[in-house]
């Protein structure tokens, strides 16, 4: 498994964990379960994790596939700079976020999933990966060469006048017809 970027899988797992945490939280609150306060926390934490994990990172090698409509999320996540860029921070953040979910059955699955995602992020961080935003490519056109802009200053080279006059007697022998008269005493 040499070339794997663990962060790609950690991202999928964390996004799934966020959704599961959110779902568990909704069930806990809607059913007015004992400990529903933890469930309402889980809703907030789930939404936060989903927003954080939705934008995929740019891959170090290979083409990155964006999620639909992730550009605005990318911009938001990018705005936090090194905090969101670093995977150690994410690993510890997810580990901390998942703990309160363990106090209630409805949210315990989300807690475990987020914990696993945190471990995978730790592995990614240890391997030196980091989050890169996927930004739209700016097409840089090659700058037009200087020589095109200015028209030629000199007329095209022509044979010396003596040879030209000789050819004027022998019209059929002349190689070409000039569209305009060419003499060097204009």
């Amino acid at each position, binding site marked *: 498994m040499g070339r794997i970027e663990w962060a*790609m899988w950690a991202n999928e797992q964390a996004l799934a964990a966020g959704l599961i945490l959110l779902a568990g939280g909704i069930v806990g609150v809607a059913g007015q379960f004992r400990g529903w306060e933890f469930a309402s926390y889980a809703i907030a934490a789930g939404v936060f994790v989903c927003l954080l994990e939705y934008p995929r990172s740019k891959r170090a090698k290979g083409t990155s596939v964006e999620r639909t409509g992730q550009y605005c999320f990318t911009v938001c996540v990018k705005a936090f700079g090194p905090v969101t860029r670093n995977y150690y921070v994410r690993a510890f953040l997810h580990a901390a976020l998942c703990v309160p979910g363990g106090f209630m059955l409805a949210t315990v699955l989300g807690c475990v999933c987020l914990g696993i995602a945190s471990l995978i992020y730790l592995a990614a961080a240890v391997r030196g990966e980091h989050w890169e935003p996927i930004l739209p490519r700016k097409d840089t056109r090659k700058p037009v060469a200087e020589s095109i802009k200015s028209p030629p200053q000199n007329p095209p080279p022509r044979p010396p006048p003596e040879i030209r006059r000789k050819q004027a007697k022998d019209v059929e022998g002349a190689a070409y017809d000039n569209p305009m008269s060419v003499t060097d005493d204009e």
Partner: protein
Amino acid sequence: MANWIINNGFPAVMVLVWMTINTFLFVWYYLQYDRDDDFYYTRHLLGSALAWARAPAAVLNFNCMLILLPVCRNLLSLIRGSFVCCSRTMRKQLDKNLSFHKLVAYMIALMTAVHTVAHLLNLEWLNNSKLGVYGKLSTALSNLEDEGNETFLNPLQHIEADPQQKPIKFAFTSIAGLTGVVITLSLILIITSSMEVIRRSYFEVFWYIHHLFIVFFVGLVFHGYGRIVRSQFNTDDHNATFCKDRPDDWGKIPECPIPQFKGGEPMTWKWVIGPMIIYVCERVLRFIRYMQAVQYRKIVIHPSKVLELQLRKKGFKMEVGQYVFLNCPSISQLEWHPFTMTSAPEEDFFSVHIRSAGDWTDQLIDTMQKLPEGAQGPKMGVDGPFGTASEDVFDYEVSMLVGAGIGVTPFASIMKSIWYKFKECDPKLRTRKIYFYWLCRETNAFEWFADLLQVLEKEMEERNLGDFLTYKLFLTGWDQGHTDQVIVHFDEDTDVVTGLKQKTHYGRPNWDKEFDQVRKENPASVVGTFLCGPAALAKVLQKKCAKYSDVDPRKTKFYFNKENF
């Protein structure tokens, strides 16, 4: 439309039948748990959440049974081979096995979600009943314990924990709870590692994590062993409608003896034991095939790091367009990777061309490069051949073959086979003329194919059959560098890119022009068009076939074959 029915009709019917069975199971078990008298008291504690948990459980049993079957490729090959009637149509549909596997997986995920939510509600309400939060009847029912002449209904018995933690403690200490958490977690990990992004880029992660299905099935079989879904079995003696208002009198009046409960027997093993055995047989068969000796006839490293392996295996019979799975234990014990075969069935060996496309292929190419001349390669396991044979190609007088990018690979096999059949005047071959269109962004990694075309070109010229094959190469990713080269080598006989007599075209083909040319050169013929490439191109070709076909038997007719090689 007709093309759609022929190609997709059978899978559509299969999916419809599958959905019907799912719906039937769901509704049947929902009604059973929602209406049966045996569950009257259980329903009193749990409400409709009982039925909402049991109905998806039935659907889950059915789908967990199905999910192992589409991945038993050897079994499918066996079935495919034994179809006598409608063989070709049936054989094509059995190739859609992976799509079906994914569909069943989605259903399992959905039903797991419903089942889990329903059980969350169940546990909460059971907990509340035990604590006496609900009315008298609930408390009385929950107080029944498994001692003396009583049997329990509420499974949350004697849990030492504070009220909020009781459901969690129960979940992690009961068989059903623990197995439930473990298998749901396995399922989630399997699903996140099977997402397209992970699967395409890091196949190893996908493959290894997917083996958690073993944990999933073991847990699934033991999930019901706690027998915690209880039903009343003495309904003849104890009528709930009458006795429900008199919980204090239970056991004291003759009409209402104490209600007795027993747990539902574990059913899942009955559903999944068959497919589990079949799957074990499949893995054993793959192992046996892997142990069979495979000799290397030739190992060639082509430019652009393409490895060609010519192999021989006893008893191996292939047809055009099929693929094999290769396993190289010195690289990875568990991984099997598919490769389309590029040799023709007429040859006494089979070959594959392997491009560098990931960890496994890179290591394989590396190992082969380090081998001394003439040495045998590392031990290789071969499973197969699989896939539908593309025999239709031989049925048309004129064939238009379109290969895009890597899609050119099955055509290597097809064209070689056509050439062998032509040389031996095989009566099965009706093809008199082939037009081959090769589209790719760059010729890297396909120079071996250009070599094949060169060989065919030469042989055809020798027999004065230059007209048999007309091929056109379209380079869709050209740049300034290409143009410069072409300008310099304009006058030469052979093409600068491929070395072939036919010049390379740049950009995408103008299909109108191509179809027109084919039509002009082949009046009153039936032309079969075959594509191995992207779906967008399939749509274009289908339209052109319809546009240039004529009902008049004196004019040309085009048939588009949407084969999935």
